[in-house]
């Protein structure tokens, strides 16, 4: 259907200009996104080397200093200090680690659940498929935030709770996409050949089907990390996530919020850090999708 449509439009050249001229839509490399991502990983890896102070060391005599360009600020604390005199730049740099740990933790949990269920569902088919898909439907009709609220109230707020609860809440997306991929891969010759050659089902799933879903999973993971960073920061901000004195961007914003009337830098820079990181992951994810997902299963 779709292809014939493009044929007609080329014959009559009445489609929008970029199709008519036959110009392929080039994939633009997201230099900005890659730069932001590079910055983020630089902070994660070299946090101990580049941060000017110990992020936990407080000095009440230097409390709530403004950034260096404001009156009263000094070059000793480039982005100023918080109410306990902790250097904000150092805390932001170290906060990147928390973001990465939390998002990788979540993805490790729900990626595993989602991939396994998706593979089984797509490969085995029949009744098993139906049951798993119904479970996915049910799971998706409960908003993730609710699962998190529930678990926080039962286990108590901490970074671990955030990882576990997002991990439990997030798998349906992975399961659905892996199942879809699996359904189409199942029909391919190499899978049939493996079956004829006598490979066990588990082996076919693990070493013939799963490797072919990795491109899709990579794109999905990059996009998901962006979402998880926002979500975990939101939870910390509400007091449902990471607890003080950890370095966490959401937590820093929550603490700075009480001083909003006279310390604008405390509610600004941690948010800028979140936004830059998330923009980096989103732009890179879009780009990866363009180059790794030609069938556009992830649209």
């Amino acid at each position, binding site marked *: *259907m*779709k292809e*014939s*449509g*493009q044929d*007609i*439009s080329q014959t*009559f050249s*009445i*489609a*929008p200009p*970029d*199709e008519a001229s036959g110009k392929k839509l080039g994939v633009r490399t997201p230099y900005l996104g890659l730069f932001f991502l590079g910055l983020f990983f630089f902070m994660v890896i070299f946090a101990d080397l580049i941060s000017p102070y110990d992020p936990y060391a407080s000095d009440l005599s230097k409390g709530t200093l403004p950034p260096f360009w404001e009156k009263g600020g000094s070059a000793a604390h480039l982005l100023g200090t918080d109410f306990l005199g902790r250097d904000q730049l150092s805390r932001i740099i170290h906060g990147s680690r928390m973001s990465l740990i939390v998002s990788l933790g979540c993805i490790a949990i729900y990626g595993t659940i989602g991939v396994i269920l998706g593979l089984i569902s797509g490969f085995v088919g029949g009744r098993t498929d139906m049951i798993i898909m*119904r479970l996915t*439907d*049910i799971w998706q*009709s*409960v*908003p993730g*935030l*609710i699962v998190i*609220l*529930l*678990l*926080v*109230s*039962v*286990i108590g707020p901490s970074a671990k709770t955030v990882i576990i609860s997002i991990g439990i809440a997030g798998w349906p997306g992975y399961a659905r996409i892996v199942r879809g991929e699996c359904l189409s891969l199942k029909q391919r010759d190499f899978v049939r050949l493996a079956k004829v050659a006598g490979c066990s089902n588990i082996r076919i799933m693990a070493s013939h089907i799963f490797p072919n879903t990795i491109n899709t999973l990579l794109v999905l993971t990059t996009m998901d990390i*962006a979402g998880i960073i*926002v979500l975990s*920061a*939101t939870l910390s*901000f*509400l*007091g*449902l996530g990471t607890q003080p004195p950890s370095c966490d961007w*959401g937590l820093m*914003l929550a603490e700075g*919020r009480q001083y*909003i*009337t006279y310390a*604008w830098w405390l*509610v*600004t820079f941690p*948010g800028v850090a*979140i*936004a830059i990181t*998330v*923009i980096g992951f*989103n*732009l890179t994810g879009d780009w990866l999708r363009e180059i790794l997902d030609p069938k556009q299963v992830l*649209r």
Partner: protein
Amino acid sequence: MKVFLLKRLGFAVFTMFFVVTIVFFLFRSGEADPAAIMLPPDATPRDMEILTKNFGLDKPLPIQYLNFLKNALRGDFGKSFRYNEPAAKVLFERFPASIQLGVTAFFFSAILGLSIGVLSAVRRDGWIDRFGRVLALGGMSIPAFWLGVMLMLLFSVNLGWLPVAGRGEGGLDTLRHMILPVICLSGYPIALITRISRSSMIDALKSDYVVMARIKGVPEPYVNIIHAFKNASITLITIMVPMATVMLLGSVVIETIFSWPGIGRLVVESTFARDYPVVQVFILLITFLITSAYIVADILYALVDQRIRFQ
């Protein structure tokens, strides 16, 4: 169609039952005793006993569960531990505030998102498209709570144009209180709607029937709206119906930042206070609304696209 709807309804009921059961046992498996949280630290063991008995917390779990189900079917979800009033009543008292914010934000984001998305698809790489892309990226990447804090810093603290928090006292005052929360609540939905409507419009504009309409000499605006948009709207329905439902129930984050007296804030407070009945009613309500939203979305599909015969 009837069979399909019945099946969907059956599934919805099953989902709710499933969710309620899980929620019930999860809450009861927590270590802390709600009675201990509600009473002041100097309460005597006797007080504890009376309270526990009052809320039926002394019976074995399976019995508590059966009682809970029996009462729930009659529309009785137990009393809120904190307010000592029926939990459903506590929740529904906060409902109007959330709806007020949610409905406004939904229409705001739908109108803005759809018009930017459709116009970007029609004039690709034009200035609206460029602006739309930046807006979509921003809406997806900037956390709503930080946007809220930043807007508050600019418009309430520094410029003093808008109130910091609260719901206002009716009329113009309420409107002024609503501006910032509505903008923050709409950020992500606008981004999502813009993106989806742009990409499904682009797909629709490439299709045979649009090309055919152009060949017939149908004027461009009609082609865009009647032929392309109607077909692009199928994907949009999938996204927007559940979105509207979730927005209706208020936003935990936005309501907390702007001290908006809605359901979202109540639920966060209740979670901290382990006021299970209120949270249970909320979860039940949201599951109910979302499952029905999916059914509504299915019906809308059929109305828009006659080819879809329910399987």
